Every structure is written in structure tokens, then in C-alpha cells.
């Protein structure tokens, strides 16, 4: 009698549990949506954008470097711990430039909450686009009336039908950190608030600019710019185009 009673109690209990589980997990297990969930989600996102500023640009971009960096792994050594560097610094030992960068990265990670202690720590893949070219702002190309002596910048030799032109020095026109979204970022997301992200990207922008300059972005930008302008003026009817460098003036 006791055995039957036990079955009469336990069987319905198991059945009820299984039915409840089916109802709750029906969507995930069998793709049947019964509108029942253990979790309740509430996402509130909103944004309002207003036009703040407009500005003229007077530049010519001729080269683009696209860099992908894995932060912080690209900046940290595998065999030097932060504590070792901090200890060296405390003892008054001068750190070499690479160690200074390691320490800077470790401190930045700590400040913005990126884990560097565990073997598979946090990481973020940052894509950056750096553009090189000429900025004509404030030059005679933007405002010919501003020239004190136009011959310093442009000279026409009618006999030879040639044009002598002095361009400004090439510059890094823009350093853009590509905006990642759920659709275009295939790696695990990183926990970081906007303020932390600002600090991280500010650090990376500086490092990326140094990298691209080392890689010769300005030289390439200059070559490419001159190549285009030479073609431009030859098509305009000149027989020869000579570019003057700063030291030729």
C-alpha cells in the first residue's frame, strides 16, 4: 500500500516537472515558442543626435593603411609580468623603452578593467584606418591671395612649358578606429565602458600613428600625391612638372 502511495505521489511530480521543463525550454530544445521563459529581458536603448559643427576640409588623401591590432596581446611580452617591471621601477632601475611601454599597457589595462593576469585574458581586435596625404589648409592652394610671394610655391616656365610646384609636407590626415558592431566583429566581445574605450583607443591611435610613420606612410603618400599631380598637370597641357622639396626653396 505504501509502495503504491509513493508511486502515486512521485510519478505525477516527475510528470509535472517534465511538463514544466518542456514548456520553459520548448523554444530552445524544439524551436517551439510557447511564450514562456525563465528569463525576462529588458533592453532600453536610445540615442539622439544633433548637428554640432560643420567645417571645410582642404586636403588630398593619397594612401590608406589598414592595421589590425590585438590589444593587449600585441603590446605585452609573454615572459615579463607587471610586478617584475613595477618592482624594478621601485628599486630605481631604469626601464628600457620597451619595458616602459609594457608597464604603460599593464597600467592602462588595470585602469580600464582588462584582465592580463590569466593565461587567456581579455582581448580586443582593433581595426584602424590611417590616411596619409596633403593638408592644404592655410596654404596658397586654399587661398592664393594669402601668398606673399607666389613664386615660392608655383612658377611657370613658358619657354619650356614646364611647371615648378612646391607642395606642403605630407601628413597623417586621419586615424580612424573602425566602429565594430555585432555584425562585423567576429571575436568575443569585451567588457569595457565608453570612458575606458576612449582611453584604450587614444593609446592605440598614438601607437598606430608611430607604426605607420615607421612603415613609411608619409613617403608613400608623397610619392602617390606627386604621381597624381604630375599626371594632372601634364593632362592640363604642361610638358614637364617639377616638384620642389622644402630644402630646394
Amino acid at each position, binding site marked *: 500500500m505504501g509502495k503504491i502511495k509513493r508511486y502515486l505521489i*512521485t510519478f505525477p511530480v516527475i510528470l509535472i*516537472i517534465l511538463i514544466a*521543463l518542456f514548456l*520553459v*525550454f520548448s523554444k*530552445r*530544445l524544439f524551436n517551439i515558442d510557447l511564450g514562456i521563459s525563465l528569463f*525576462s*529581458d*529588458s*533592453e*532600453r*536603448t*536610445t*540615442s539622439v*543626435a*544633433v*548637428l554640432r*559643427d*560643420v567645417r*571645410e*576640409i582642404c*586636403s*588630398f*588623401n*593619397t594612401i*590608406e*593603411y589598414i592595421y*589590425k591590432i*590585438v590589444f593587449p596581446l600585441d603590446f605585452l611580452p609573454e615572459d615579463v609580468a607587471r610586478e617584475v617591471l613595477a618592482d624594478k621601477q621601485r628599486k630605481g632601475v631604469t626601464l628600457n623603452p620597451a619595458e616602459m611601454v609594457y608597464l604603460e599597457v599593464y597600467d592602462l589595462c588595470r585602469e580600464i578593467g582588462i584582465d592580463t593576469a590569466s593565461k587567456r585574458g581579455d582581448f*580586443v*581586435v582593433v581595426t584602424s584606418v590611417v*590616411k596619409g*596625404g596633403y593638408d592644404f589648409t592655410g596654404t596658397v*592652394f*586654399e587661398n*592664393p591671395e594669402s601668398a606673399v610671394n607666389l613664386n615660392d610655391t*608655383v612658377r*611657370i616656365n613658358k619657354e619650356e612649358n614646364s611647371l615648378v*610646384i612646391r607642395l606642403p609636407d605630407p601628413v597623417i590626415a*586621419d586615424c*580612424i578606429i573602425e*566602429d*565594430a*558592431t*555585432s555584425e562585423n566583429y567576429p*571575436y568575443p*566581445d569585451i567588457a*569595457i*565602458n565608453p*570612458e575606458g*574605450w*576612449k582611453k584604450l*583607443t587614444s593609446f592605440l*591611435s598614438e601607437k598606430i600613428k608611430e607604426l605607420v610613420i615607421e*612603415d613609411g606612410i608619409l613617403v*608613400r603618400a608623397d610619392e*602617390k600625391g606627386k604621381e*597624381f599631380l604630375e599626371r594632372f598637370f601634364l593632362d*592640363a597641357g604642361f610638358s614637364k612638372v617639377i616638384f620642389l622639396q622644402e630644402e630646394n626653396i
Partner: protein
Amino acid sequence: MNSGQRRCSLGAGCLLILFSLFLFSCERNSIQDFDIIETHIKEILDLPAYEYVYRDIVYVGSEKKFLKIIPTRDTEVLFAIDVRVQAGIDLKKGIRLLPGKDKDITLVLPRAEILLVDADEASIEQYFAQERVGQIMRLEYYDEIDRKKETIQEDAVKRGILYRAEENSEKLLRNFLRLAGFEEILFIWETPPEESAG
């Protein structure tokens, strides 16, 4: 096995099933194979000529509860960020110079286009960030910024950014040619603009 032990093992079994299903039901972020990380160098011929800067005020709040009682996530953040819209001419699409008599010249150019819509990280101003349960994830707020970009771009076009970019590009190219001795410079834009003249 006595009845007490049976009840215990039955309860434990049910809990195990429940726990397994709970784990199964949780979102899993699979780590995908990494692409080869590389650097590209691309030759461009962009003449960016005009930029509009929008201030975007973004609020992202996320709340998740288990059984509508136990919070498993409760975060919110409010910040402002500049979104830059840059317009200009992509000279790679073709530029033709047609010298005329004496000091006349005609330039045939591609129409101005939007060259860039980008959130400027350096301009971020965070008003508050609350992480009561869980953490604020970067893609959460970047998805919201991205969602707004299309509207911002449309607004910039409506406000005549393409028209202004053409005007400014024309000014720069005219100056180049004037300095090279040309007096009559005519501009022909190849396709009709997709915007009102602002």
C-alpha cells in the same frame, strides 16, 4: 535503499536535469577561428572637402532577471560621442582635363559622395556607467551608435553636405589651376547629385 534515500536521489535527479537544461539554455558565445591579422596598404585619391559633426547622446540600459525576480544582469550607461560625416570626391572614379584655347580648361569630375561616417572615440564623454549586476559590453553601445549612423548620414545629405563638398572641391581645384596660369575654368560633374542643393 529506503524511502528517504529514494526521495533524495529523485530530488537530486530532478535538480540535475534542471541544472543541465539551465546551462543548455544559457547563451553561449562560441570563440570563432581568428582571421589572419594583417595590414593592407591601399592607394586612394580622396578629396575630402566638407565635414559635419553630430553629437550623439546614447543611453543603453540592460536588465535581465531569472524567474522575473533574481537579477542576472543590470547595467546602464549614458554618454555622448561625436559622429563625423565626411563628404568629398573620390578621384579614383575618374577625372578628365580638357584643355581649351589659350588659358581655358574644362574639368570633368565624379560627383561628391559620402566618404566617411565614423564615431570619434576621442570625443567620448561619459556621464554615468552603472554595473550593478554584470558588465557593460562594448558592442552593446556600438550597435546603438551604428543604428543611428544611417539617420545621421541622411540628415547630412538633406542639409546639403554633398553640394558643399562639391563647391569646396571646385574651389581647391580652381586654385590649383589658377596658380598654374589658367583663367577660364569650367567644371562638369558627371552624374546628377542625389540631394537637394541644401
